[in-house]
């Protein structure tokens, strides 16, 4: 069975990705802050790991190596968000955003590439966002990390190509998942935010997490054998709308 490592597996998009990859016949190694369970009775390994801690990531990947020996797809979904304008942001909050959203992908690649090299699938997919391209108000750290995810994707695609490994990113618009729930909880006017989230897309609605997960699965599959160093927008036309 091919093996997929999925970070942020306990979250909205992570859960959907786990399900969709399990449907495609993957064994799962699921990473999140606390142990994530494979969805719907799928086989797999749940690992509690702090992606901002190199020792913790190294330990998780040695457990993955022990259990599976090789990895076919590394899917980096984990991420956090922090609402604060630059002028008011604590340096520690900025650092934490960078450490998890970008540093986490560096660490999973660092410890995951040797396992990917031994696998047959040889694909990395990173979660970016339209926020890497437009300035979401009051989320400067998030916007910065998501642009960095795309740059890291390009850089890793270059480095990993010599080993036959493809590296791509997916950039969603609004997704009906944890990040949106958090934004809704933080606003004074959830109805207005809901309407805004819907109207931001040409398709007139937000994405369901499975729609993002299916794009991830395609990029991770051999059908995308000539796609590397790219960002696939799964944004219902968000970037086209003005």
């Amino acid at each position, binding site marked *: 069975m091919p093996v997929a490592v999925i970070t942020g597996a306990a979250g909205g998009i992570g859960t959907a990705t786990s399900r969709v990859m399990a449907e495609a016949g993957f064994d799962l190694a699921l990473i999140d802050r606390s142990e994530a369970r494979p969805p719907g009775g799928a086989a797999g390994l749940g690992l509690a790991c702090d992606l901002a801690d190199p020792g913790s990531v190294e330990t998780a990947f040695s457990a993955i190596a022990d259990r599976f020996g090789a990895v076919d797809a590394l899917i980096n979904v984990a991420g956090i968000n922090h609402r604060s304008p630059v002028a008011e942001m604590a340096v520690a909050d900025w650092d934490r955003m960078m450490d998890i959203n970008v540093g986490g992908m560096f660490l999973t690649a660092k410890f995951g590439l040797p396992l990917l090299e031994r696998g047959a699938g040889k694909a990395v997919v990173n979660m970016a966002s339209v926020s890497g391209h437009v300035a979401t108000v009051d989320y400067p750290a998030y916007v910065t990390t998501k642009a960095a995810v795309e740059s890291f994707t*390009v850089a890793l*695609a*270059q480095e990993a*190509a010599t080993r036959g490994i*493809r590296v791509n990113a997916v950039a*969603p*618009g609004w997704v009906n998942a944890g990040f949106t729930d958090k934004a809704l909880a933080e606003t004074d006017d959830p109805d207005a935010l809901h309407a805004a989230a819907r109207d931001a897309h*040409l*398709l*007139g609605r937000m*994405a*369901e997490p499975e*729609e*993002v997960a*299916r*794009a991830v*699965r*395609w990029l991770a599959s051999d*059908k*995308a*054998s*000539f*796609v*590397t*160093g*790219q960002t*696939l*927008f*799964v*944004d*219902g*036309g968000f*970037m*086209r*709308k003005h």
Partner: protein
Amino acid sequence: MTRNGTIAITGAAGGIGIATVRCVQAAGLRAAALDLNPVAEADLSHALDLADEEAIARAFEAIGPLAGLVCIAGTNARGRVEDLPWETWRHVMAVNVRGTMLAMKHASPRLADGASIVLTSSVSAHIGTDGYVAYHTSKGAVLGLMRAASGEFAERGVRVNAVSPGWVDTPFTDRALAELPDGEAIRAAAGAAHLLGRMAQPGEIAEAIMFLLSDEASFVTGTELIVDGGFLRKR
């Protein structure tokens, strides 16, 4: 995945086109070909010139209801700004841009709600190779057309996207190289221009087209899927 119905494919007789016909049929869909040349493998074949609007209109009339449209037909021509004949410029624009627009126009009333349209641009929309001014311009225009149409068709739930290949091993590439004195040397170097160290096989472009056609891409619209083996990323 769209499970039944007909997909109209322009340029179906070419390298990427025939690979797409095969993928469409393998997915259980019917392939309707529109090309200068007939396509025996397709379920329906209309030999026509995409510069001729009446011929396009008649073909779509005959093909009937559609689950999707794939515009692959394209033509290339050598020439720089300072020496490109006006008629050559107009021909490249007529096939690559107007032909694509007209195919969408006449497919439009026949496209089912929730259908998908895939256009073919190129990495050439992002770089400039000296000597192909009309082609580069036309492929940039295809992206503009894709973005504009994605807004227009969204109200019907019809998605519009583009694929942009890097070098693909097809007759198109063979012809372009044959025109050049150092064509074989350029072919030998072409693989190394991609991060993956090789040109694409046409089936790899067809798979990307299939993804965009299918319900797997249900939230993908107005975007460009670059299938270039890292060509644009390589320096």
